[in-house]
């Protein structure tokens, strides 16, 4: 970014690439006030409201059996849906980034589709497939399998809304990295799996981590789609966000915010991991850029 040599002419020209100090301070001020109002204040409000009845009430509301079962269901949902989408994301990114085939652009669009579908519409789709009047409804009832208004439906709806997260993160990353390193590994006799584990995975690990934590945050926090398929059975099919809604509608504000504070904490941890992953990959990229450029050398190198 920054140039090393600053000749007088360069310095003179630079005054034309930035604004007068008062403009800079005004813009910075407006941006920070906007962020404070729209991001910091809502975040702070969650924790303040959660502790509004004291620390004891806070922990008591989290020890409530319904709250505890909501926490468990949320963890189970994330534990199933994130690995499913992880496997899919890696497979889809491998197919889309490493090969050329007909209909690739269309496939990429389809992978993105769940992002633009309203969560409520997504929930409704599953009701139409698995609900009592749905496609498989009679068969499921005959075999005594419950999907809608039960845990499987919640997992399915969560898988749908978090479907593109990991693939979306990996596809551009793997496309930018190209195939050279993988081809070298294959030519040198590595199997496909070895190539993936030892060559591709180290290259994409930060992007993968970023995708997984965002996927997880959304999986634990999904509200609209899950609310359609859950049936809101207390202690059975309530995730934390649904538990928050019930408490809030019952005017148990402090307890609602206590449960919400768990999700806010999850968001903060997510942002922290994401930032660390970004800084780390940035540092690795810079280190790689500082290596001497590859050039033909008479010595037999490792590649």
């Amino acid at each position, binding site marked *: 970014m920054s140039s090393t040599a600053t000749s007088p002419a360069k310095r003179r020209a630079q005054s034309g690439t930035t604004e007068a100090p008062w403009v800079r301070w005004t813009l910075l001020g407006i941006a920070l006030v906007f962020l404070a109002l729209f991001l910091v204040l809502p975040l702070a409000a969650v924790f303040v409201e959660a502790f509004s009845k004291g620390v004891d009430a806070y922990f008591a509301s989290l020890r409530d059996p319904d709250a505890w079962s909501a926490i468990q269901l949320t963890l189970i949902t994330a534990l199933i849906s994130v690995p499913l989408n992880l496997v899919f994301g890696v497979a889809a990114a491998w197919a889309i980034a490493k090969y050329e085939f007909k209909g690739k652009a269309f496939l990429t669009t389809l992978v993105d589709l769940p992002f*633009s579908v309203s969560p409520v519409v997504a929930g409704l789709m599953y009701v139409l497939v698995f609900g009592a009047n749905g496609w498989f409804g009679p068969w499921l009832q005959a075999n005594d399998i419950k999907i809608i208004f039960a845990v499987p439906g919640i997992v399915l709806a969560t898988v749908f809304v978090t479907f593109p997260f990991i693939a979306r993160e990996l596809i551009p990353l793997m496309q930018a990295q190209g195939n050279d390193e993988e081809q070298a590994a*294959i030519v040198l006799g590595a199997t496909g799996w070895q190539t993936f584990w030892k060559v591709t995975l180290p290259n994409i690990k930060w992007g993968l981590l970023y995708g997984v934590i965002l996927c997880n945050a959304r999986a634990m926090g999904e509200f609209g789609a899950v609310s359609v398929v859950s049936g809101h059975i207390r202690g059975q099919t309530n995730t934390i966000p649904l538990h928050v809604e019930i408490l809030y509608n019952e005017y148990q504000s402090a307890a609602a915010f206590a449960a919400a504070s768990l999700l806010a904490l999850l968001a903060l941890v997510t942002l922290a991991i994401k930032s660390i992953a970004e800084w780390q990959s940035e540092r690795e990229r810079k280190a790689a850029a500082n290596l001497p450029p590859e050039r033909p050398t008479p010595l037999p190198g490792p590649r």
Partner: protein
Amino acid sequence: MSSAISAVPPGGAGAGRARRSKRVLPGFGLTLGYTLFYLSIIVLVPMSALLFKTFTLTWDQFWVAVSAPRVLASYRLTFGASLIAALVNLVFGLLIAWVLVRYSFPGKKIVDALVDLPFALPTAVAGISLTALLAGNGWLGQYLEPLGIQLAFKPAGVVIALIFIGLPFVVRTVQPVLEDTEKELEEAATSLGATRWQTFTRVILPSITPALMTGFAMAFARAIGEYGSVIFIAGNMPMVSEITPLIIIGKLEQYDYAGATAVAVVMLVISFVLLLVINALQAWQRRNAGAPA
């Protein structure tokens, strides 16, 4: 771009050999097959269930369901509020991206990380928190209400929730493009006598317009489908502050599956169109970035 990706080994390979060795990397069949299988069961089959259900309706049934006055009012609110929110995000998103790329200030890394908060914070949490802030006895509401400004439980509250939800989109699409813009062009413009404002509107703005439009379209698309954050703050009064996703929920709760499906299909078609628009904008953005400066 595409030629760089294809796996043709450099040098010497004849046309026939290149064709065979194009699949040097193993796993094409496995990964593509699994991708299509998983995509089908998670996305395509449920989506086709929605479409098939729609075809069981007669045209009149469909039309009555999607054009009832209460539903029309919800479209107006959903689209109007989403448009206003996306416009606000366009302006402030550009401002925030600009500040993050061009200026240095203490705590910049934390501010940068915080911009993604709406992606990470569950929408229901955002909803109750914004409501608590803006309600008559809330931190902000207690000062605004005496002035006659009531935001919570009004359409204005919907706009505020949607601004929160869409904020990162414009920032995150514009930021990388702004980082890549060449300062030499600005220097050239200045040395040719342009004022800073002229340089901004004629040199910088054209180069980031595709990214701005992409971010705007993404924020708008996300806002249209949003449910969790809005329902707490909207007040959900029929004809006034009831969003379209809530109409679907309402019909479902009355076991009106046909009506819910009809409205859902309208929303789904709109999502498709927006997705295509976003794809076209992204292609434009890539062409713009690839064009010689």
